[in-house]
């Protein structure tokens, strides 16, 4: 601790402002003086709030802050507020951007629920909700109140087993109307969307979908996937012969008889933003840099914004941004420590990548391979260097884009976390073996990152998804 305090003192003597501790990455050449200091607040560990697996805040966050406008202001019709951490935050909430959505039975304006604490994930597609999410105050919609999706020629209802590294999301697929953005969810609306209710009851121990995730594993009510793809599986799952083990026709519920089937793309769980009338070609996620790392255990909430659409309104312009196209596998290229990952990396001889490089708000750290010392205890698997490690990687699009050097740093976040900070700029973790570079949520601090959906165009038609831009 003494040496740590010495480093902190040195950082102050060096004239570095504490408020700069959340400066985010930059694309300039790394120079030590330009890097933000380690988050120094909250060095004395405080007791954390008790874990509360399911939060229901009643849509209390209604303001939107961005990297360009750190002062939170009213959300426009195409903007949804994001929060990281709140008074019920736990370790589950580290760098976990969450929002709220109003969901209604198709065609109804009264049979509805407002669901908070939905993780916004740029690495998946589609809305998935835990059954317990429907129990919010004022809700008149039950988790089994959505009409099930049926597939032509099948007598049962549609279930899905969607794989995440943290487990498989299993449960029925239902249709719903969704409202988001603006004031009181009046901004944008999409009807008849296939949404996934993650209800693993009946599937445990079966061969249908092993290791299903449940609400008790997380501190959020669901996942809103706003990734590059429009559907969560796409044409591959439309062909029954592919036997993808993703969609099932179940008669008698999930514990009844379930058969793997192909599902037309318009019935699959779908990125709801891609179905909007106008703002449907992508999203951008933005967090102001100045608020990151400012928490001292008293005000741990960090606010940001999810803006719907790209170049469709004045608040989602890409005029000053660089384009980084992704390939069909959702990769671009990252070069780190001499190794090349992603679309320009190694393949298996059949053209399939054997490494990954991508941007993902569903990963709560920057994950890459290095020899930096790792943490123990609650941060096992994350890097805990003795001081700040100033690092950089080179990002390049899968096709035709300029290379950009991205500076970042990794530090020991144990004290900040113990103090109740859950927005951690310097959080890095290990890939164990060099199979990729995952630019997780810390990449979004101080930036506005655009996610362009597959086959949707923007930038006056010059950009067609899939791509990232920032």
């Amino acid at each position, binding site marked *: 601790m003494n040496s740590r305090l010495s480093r902190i003192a040195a950082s102050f003597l060096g004239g570095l402002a504490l408020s700069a501790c959340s400066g985010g990455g930059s694309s300039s050449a790394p120079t030590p003086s330009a890097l933000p200091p380690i988050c120094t607040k909250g060095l004395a560990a405080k007791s954390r709030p008790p874990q509360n697996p399911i939060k229901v805040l009643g849509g209390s966050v209604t303001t939107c802050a961005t990297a360009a406008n750190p002062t939170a202001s009213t959300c426009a019709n195409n903007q949804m507020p994001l929060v990281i951490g709140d008074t019920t935050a736990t*370790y*589950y909430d*580290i*760098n976990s951007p969450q929002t709220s959505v109003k969901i209604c039975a198709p065609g109804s304006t009264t049979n509805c629920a407002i669901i908070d604490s939905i*993780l916004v*994930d740029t*690495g*998946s*597609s589609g809305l998935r909700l835990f059954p317990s999410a429907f129990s919010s105050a004022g809700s008149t919609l039950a988790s089994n109140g959505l009409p099930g999706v049926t597939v032509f020629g099948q007598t049962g209802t549609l279930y899905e087993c969607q*794989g*995440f*590294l*943290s487990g498989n999301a299993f449960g029925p697929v239902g249709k719903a109307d969704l409202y988001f953005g603006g004031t009181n969810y009046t901004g944008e609306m999409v009807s008849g969307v296939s949404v996934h209710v993650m209800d693993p009851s009946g599937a445990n121990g079966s061969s249908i979908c092993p*290791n299903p995730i449940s609400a008790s*594993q997380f501190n959020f009510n669901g996942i809103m*996937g706003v*990734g*590059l*793809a429009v559907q969560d599986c796409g044409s*591959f799952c439309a*062909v029954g*012969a*592919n*036997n*993808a*083990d*993703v969609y099932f026709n179940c008669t008698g519920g999930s514990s009844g008889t379930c058969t793997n089937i192909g599902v037309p793309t318009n019935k699959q769980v779908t990125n709801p933003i891609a179905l909007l009338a106008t703002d449907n070609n992508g999203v951008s996620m933005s967090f102001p840099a100045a608020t990151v790392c400012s928490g001292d255990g008293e005000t741990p909430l960090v606010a940001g914004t999810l803006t719907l659409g790209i170049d469709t309104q004045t608040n989602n312009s890409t005029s000053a941004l660089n384009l980084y196209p992704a390939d069909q*596998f*959702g*990769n671009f290229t990252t070069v780190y420590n001499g190794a090349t990952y992603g679309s320009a990396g*190694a*393949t*298996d*001889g*059949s053209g*399939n*990548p*054997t*490494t*990954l490089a*991508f941007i*993902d708000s*569903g*990963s*709560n*750290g920057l*994950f890459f391979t290095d020899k930096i010392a790792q943490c123990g205890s609650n941060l*096992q*698997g*994350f890097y805990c260097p003795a001081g700040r490690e100033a690092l950089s990687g080179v990002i390049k699009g899968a096709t035709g884009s300029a290379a950009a050097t991205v500076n970042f740093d990794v530090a020991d976040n144990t004290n900040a976390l113990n103090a109740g900070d859950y927005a951690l700029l310097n959080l890095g*973790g*290990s*890939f*164990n*073996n060099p*199979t*990729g570079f*995952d630019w*997780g*949520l810390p990449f979004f601090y101080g930036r506005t990152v655009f996610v362009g959906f597959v086959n949707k165009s923007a930038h006056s038609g010059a950009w067609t998804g899939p791509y990232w831009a920032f």
Partner: protein
Amino acid sequence: MTVKMKTSLSDDGRSLSKRDELSQSVRSRLPFLLVGLFCVAGLMGPVAQATLGGSPDSIKSDRESNAKTQARKFSAVKTDKQGAFEFKEYSHASHRVRQYYSGDKVFAVTCSGRTQCDHKQLLGAYSDEFDAELQKSRALHRGLRAPIQISSEHLTGSIVSNGRIFISKIVLKDAAPADFVLEEMP
């Protein structure tokens, strides 16, 4: 090295013959028991083969077992080399499975595809050990997509995904040749 082995078709004969607790009378009936086991297995459909730690030929029976019962189009098993290490490989619409072997033992498996690979099938006798490690890694609260690290008594490796593709690389530590480098495995 203590390895808990499950019943598996490719190495049953070897493991059963080593069990001291089998009576002589049972030993004399072993061929008939094995024939019976094969018949039961045939009726039950695909059975997890002893892949990791098993014979290199297990990938062939694995592929044939799956191809008989599933509508997918499976490629033929091919044999090739990656650096100094031989491997056998097959693929179908959703996955490519590769087994690295040395002598008569598979010491590493890799799998990549649109969805998570069937690790129970790939890891055979080591799938329980793998599952325990998987749960441990998932409890580290690293979000939806942080890489899964596997480092257990017998296994090392990782599972990674960007949401569009899943890549698994698992090595049987004690069986891997000394000059084998995990990073060299596609």
